[in-house]
């Protein structure tokens, strides 16, 4: 920054937010699986509040059969699976690259068993990693969307194992497919999670009526994009009310109003996924638009926005 007039709009208002012990320069970060170094061709990745990588698993895995994506009205389905090159590739090839950025690096991990999950967690707790996001919610890994985050007991067990395996800030990525969103959030908090991410994709399906085949090779997959926004916002609101740890909103965020909607509901930061596929520059624009908005509204600290939802009057209908 070389500007001298602190009142000029370009004086970059302070958009910093805290997520537990971590301070982010702004609340906008990518959602896991929708981001990679390829995006650096389109904007300066250091404009982001953090970098969140595609979930990695311990060994190498091919991922799901194709087609792996299809589009919907207001969203998409994916069943990428978690193609993974394994932990060694991450350590040797990816970490050095990402360490070159100022933005804190969040590493997303997953596993089929608690042992493997804890081992992977310890192995990725390396210098240069700012936080670990535990993807306990990927609906593609186990049959019919049953993941750790579907239930409070499995959530608490796996998060305790991860908590013991690392000293880094530990985020738990929740699923909208559970019938107990609040109970699982409380279980993650009780197990020592430093933040929650609400949420991963909603389990869905689509059929091509001409071929009578499912549109995804995996038959079912995760719905993301604006279509799931009301569900993700509801979970964000439920979790911020129930828990004391910060919540990171995620699901369908594409516009400044969406960012504000999640912050007002209580999110301390937001993740943007599918919108990047529609417009790869969207996250950089959201940061700029948020700066303009705070300036225009006299907001000096985003804590004036976060959780500021007003409850309706208690008037009769």
């Amino acid at each position, binding site marked *: 920054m070389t500007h001298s007039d602190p009142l000029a709009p370009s004086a970059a208002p302070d958009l910093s937010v805290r997520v537990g012990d971590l301070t982010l320069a702004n609340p906008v970060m990518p959602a896991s*699986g*929708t*981001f*990679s170094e*390829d*995006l*650096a*061709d*389109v*904007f*300066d*990745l*250091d*404009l982001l509040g953090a970098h969140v990588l*595609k979930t990695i698993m311990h060994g190498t895995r*091919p*991922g799901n059969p*194709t*087609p*792996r*994506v*299809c*589009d*919907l*009205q*207001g*969203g*998409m389905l*994916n069943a*990428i699976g978690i*193609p993974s090159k394994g932990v060694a590739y991450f350590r040797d090839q990816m970490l050095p690259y990402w360490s070159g950025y100022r933005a804190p690096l969040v590493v997303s991990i997953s596993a089929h068993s608690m042992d493997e999950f804890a081992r992977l967690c310890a192995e990725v707790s390396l210098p240069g990693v700012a936080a670990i996001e535990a993807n306990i919610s990927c609906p593609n890994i186990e049959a019919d969307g049953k993941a750790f985050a579907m239930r409070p007991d499995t959530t608490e067990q796996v998060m305790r194992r991860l908590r013991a395996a690392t000293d880094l800030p530990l985020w738990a990525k929740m699923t909208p497919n559970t019938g107990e969103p609040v109970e699982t959030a409380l279980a993650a908090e009780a197990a020592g999670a430093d933040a929650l991410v609400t949420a991963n994709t909603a389990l869905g399906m689509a059929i091509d009526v001409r071929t009578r085949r499912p549109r995804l090779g995996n038959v079912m997959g995760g719905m993301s*994009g*604006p279509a799931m926004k009301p569900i993700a916002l509801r979970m964000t609101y439920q979790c911020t009310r129930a828990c004391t740890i910060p919540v990171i909103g995620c699901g369908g965020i*594409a*516009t400044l109003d969406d960012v504000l909607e999640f912050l007002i509901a209580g999110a301390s930061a937001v993740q943007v996924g599918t*919108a*990047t*596929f*529609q*417009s*790869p*520059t*969207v996250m*950089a*624009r959201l940061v*700029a*638009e948020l700066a303009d908005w705070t300036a225009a509204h006299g907001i000096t600290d985003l804590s004036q926005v976060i959780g500021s939802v007003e409850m309706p009057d208690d008037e009769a209908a």
Partner: protein
Amino acid sequence: MTLIPSLLSVPVAPGIAARCAEARTVVLSNTPVNGEYRLLTLDAPVEVLACQPGQFFQLLCPEPEGEHPFLRRPMSIYGYDAEAGQLQFLYKVAGAGTRGLATLRPGDGLNVLGPLGQGFTMADDWQDLLLLARGVGLATLAPLARMAQQKGRRLTAICSARRPELAMSVDLFQGYGAEVIVVHDEDGSSAPDALRALIEARITAGRVDAFYTCGSSRLLRLLQDLGARHGIPGEIAMEQQMACGLGMCQACVRPFQEADGIVHRRVCREGPVFPIAEAIA
């Protein structure tokens, strides 16, 4: 589409030689060609015009009435001209996205992302080139003709179609000095055996150093077989469902045959052009 990407421009990091950009273009024309196909000509900024034949763009298609294409649609570059500031796509109206493209009128804006992927290569010893494609695949191969002319190579384009009058890009190929052979279904000249005979005659005459093709599994298998028998290399442009087009999401993988076994590569990043020998039909 959902987002209306604003015109706010965002910087890339210093030192990055960006291979692509998200840009707003303006439609110059969008006219029917051959009934099933349309040619879209855009006024495009120079930062998206450093193209290679075989590369593609991701187009943010407008919504046709009552339909909601959400993801971008991949389209091969049919023509590009950095000096004139123009970019062209030849597309077939297939579903919601391309129906949306068909609604574009001169003066409308269109958000494009590109150029993407790895284009065709043309090794120095590939002097005699044989191009074989069908339908919209010919769109993908069209810019090869210009590249061949610029590099002074001889190009033969075998254009396959249902009926002779549906064969596309004949004029364009000829304009770039290619020899064009139209084969079609009505007289059986497009059948695999007929094509095999046609191509083998040319190979025997020593007139084929490399193949280019795209799309169809049938044509791929034919060229793989001929290539293996006669030791002729070549390249194919492939397709796959995409989400990001940039390499981030891993939606667009296809299996390829490597020495050690089958590997997955991203059509949008490692491709869409691959060695014919490694492709799996």
